[in-house]
């Protein structure tokens, strides 16, 4: 008989105690797997957005993180605007040489809980996300001359129930003093889920955005309302416009990565006194290391503690059984088993218990994630399946063996030290 089988018999013999300790180990490992995978999901869904198809955000001078949170995540309090002329500087003015793609966005309105993003058709055509192009689950993008056309993110469509062809009225900045604008926008398209904040965005033609009377900067409100009531919508003159931010993908020359052009552009913009340029990836990385990383470490430490507690459970379970197995150990020794052999058998028992429990927990953990995956996908846009593995999981098996060896050491030592002559005399 090989030693693993002998150790396994010993586990079988203490069926209930073994099952319970194995179960607690399974729970521990299940939690570790869940934390690891979910953390991976969160990181992905956050970091995905850093590859939104642009590498620089240009906006009003002020908080750098605020600008990024507003433009990339549609979070945080609104920021100031910059003149439309600055956008023109980027596309046809003094910064033209650095710029590959520049898309203006106008923020400030909401529809229900969702941010409204006024922009040009290029937002969905020229920018992508994580290397992908936007895909329409239904309908199509708005055209530049469809002033009141809109495209809804997947989450918006699902939660509001709006369909292609429906109309809706954005309101001004939410809250109790929210003003519901009179102008109706028509849903022309619905995006497939992207796993980016755009799932929660209401994307409208910025021409329409500018024509909302409360937004007009070229004429007074009364005149604007009058014109709107008559249905007379002429585009607002360019020199009267403002934008919240411009999303810029820097130019790439001769196949060189666009990032090369970013530092000179940022430097040049920041030297002026109109606007600031920030790198969303850098800002998000800073945010990540200050908030999310410590959280992850706390979670990991907690779950590792759970596994260690389960390990101690194994220690207690085996150690408690040591006095009753003194006689068994003595019999094995009388059959010629050496001290090292009986010690090894106890260690193997600990390893088997940890691994069996751990593997069960690992499978259940992934099963649970697979079960929860529709919900996770709905919340974050990141789809996870049973086979969503995280690099850290490679550590689980060696980690369990190490843990089992550590916790098995004490009872194994007791086995090693068994006084055979004495134990044989005592009746079990």
């Amino acid at each position, binding site marked *: 008989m090989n030693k693993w089988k002998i150790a396994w018999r010993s586990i079988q013999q203490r069926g209930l105690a073994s099952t319970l300790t194995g179960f607690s180990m399974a729970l521990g490992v299940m939690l570790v797997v869940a934390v690891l995978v979910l953390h991976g999901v969160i990181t992905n869904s956050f970091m995905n957005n850093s590859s939104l198809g642009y590498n620089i955000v240009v906006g009003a001078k002020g908080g750098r993180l605020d600008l990024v949170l507003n433009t990339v995540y549609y979070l945080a309090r609104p920021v100031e605007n910059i003149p439309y002329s600055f956008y023109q500087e980027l596309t046809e003015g003094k910064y033209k040489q650095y710029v590959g793609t520049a898309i203006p966005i106008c923020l400030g309105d909401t529809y229900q809980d969702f941010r409204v993003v006024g922009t040009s058709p290029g937002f969905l055509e020229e920018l992508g996300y994580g290397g992908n192009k936007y895909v329409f689950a239904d309908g199509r993008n708005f055209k530049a001359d469809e002033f009141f056309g809109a495209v809804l993110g997947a989450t918006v469509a699902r939660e509001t129930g709006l369909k292609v062809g429906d109309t809706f009225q954005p309101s001004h900045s939410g809250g109790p003093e929210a003003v519901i604008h009179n102008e109706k926008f028509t849903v022309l398209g619905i995006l497939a889920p992207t796993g980016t904040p755009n799932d929660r965005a209401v994307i409208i033609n910025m021409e329409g955005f500018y024509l909302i009377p409360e937004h007009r900067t070229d004429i007074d409100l009364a005149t604007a309302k009058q014109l709107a009531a008559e249905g007379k919508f002429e585009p607002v003159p360019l020199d009267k416009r403002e934008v919240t931010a411009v999303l810029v993908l820097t130019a790439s020359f001769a196949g060189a990565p666009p990032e090369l052009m970013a530092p000179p552009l940022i430097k040049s913009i920041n030297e002026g006194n109109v606007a600031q340029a920030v790198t969303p990836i850098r800002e998000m990385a800073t945010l990540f290391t200050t908030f999310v990383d410590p959280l992850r470490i706390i979670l990991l430490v907690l779950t590792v503690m759970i596994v260690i507690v389960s390990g101690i459970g194994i220690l207690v379970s085996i150690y408690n059984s040591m006095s009753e197995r003194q006689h068994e150990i003595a*019999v094995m020794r009388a*059959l010629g088993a050496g001290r090292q052999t009986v010690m090894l058998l106890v260690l193997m028992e600990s390893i088997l218990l940890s691994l069996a429990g751990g593997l069960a927990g690992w499978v259940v953990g992934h099963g649970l994630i697979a079960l929860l995956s529709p919900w996770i996908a709905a919340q974050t846009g990141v789809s996870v399946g049973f086979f969503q593995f995280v690099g850290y999981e490679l550590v689980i098996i060696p980690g369990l063996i190490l843990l089992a060896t550590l916790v098995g050491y004490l009872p194994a030592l007791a086995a090693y030290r068994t006084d055979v002559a004495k134990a044989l005399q005592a009746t079990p």
Partner: protein
Amino acid sequence: MLLLKDVKKSFREPDGNPLPILDIREFRVAASEQVVLMGRSGCGKTTLLHCIAGISKPDSGMVEIDGLDITRLSEAGRDLFRADKLGYVFQTFNLLPGFSALENVLLGMSFAGKGVDTARAKDLLGRVGLGHRLTHRPAALSVGEQQRVAVARALANRPKLLLADEPTANVDTAHQQQIIDLVRNTCRDENVALLLVTHTPEVAEQFERVERLENFNQAG
């Protein structure tokens, strides 16, 4: 086969004074010989068997088995020697409760480092009349059956010497004779020397050679 010379063994009393248990000038068992060892309770019979088996180490003296003085071996060496050359049957609780009858026999083989011989294990169990009980756990066997498994296991590695410490103390008279016959016959078949401890005169009187420990033990 077995030769003890000047074997001394004492235990410490709780107050720290040494309590001599064994002091044997010379004791021999020839190859294939069958010897009964008697003596009053507490006189040191079990202690003597432990010394022969290498489970305990005598304080001094020589224990030579098959030409090798095991007192000069390391503990690990004695373990291996025991697995290889000796069989041991205790009074009770010989078997490991988690293992079937067959597995108990195989277990004895696996520690000897010679590889397991399932055919021989089954054969031995057949010879002790338990060919139909191979997969039974000890709890599902009578005490007499357990002792028979223990005998089969003790002989599994083809030892030179079988030590049996009151193997029939816990079985009734009818089964007592069955086990004694079994031990004696299988030892004879396999050319194994036998040293059997008993308190029962009916058992002792069947043997050609009966030794009382008091007669050759200077201690106590």
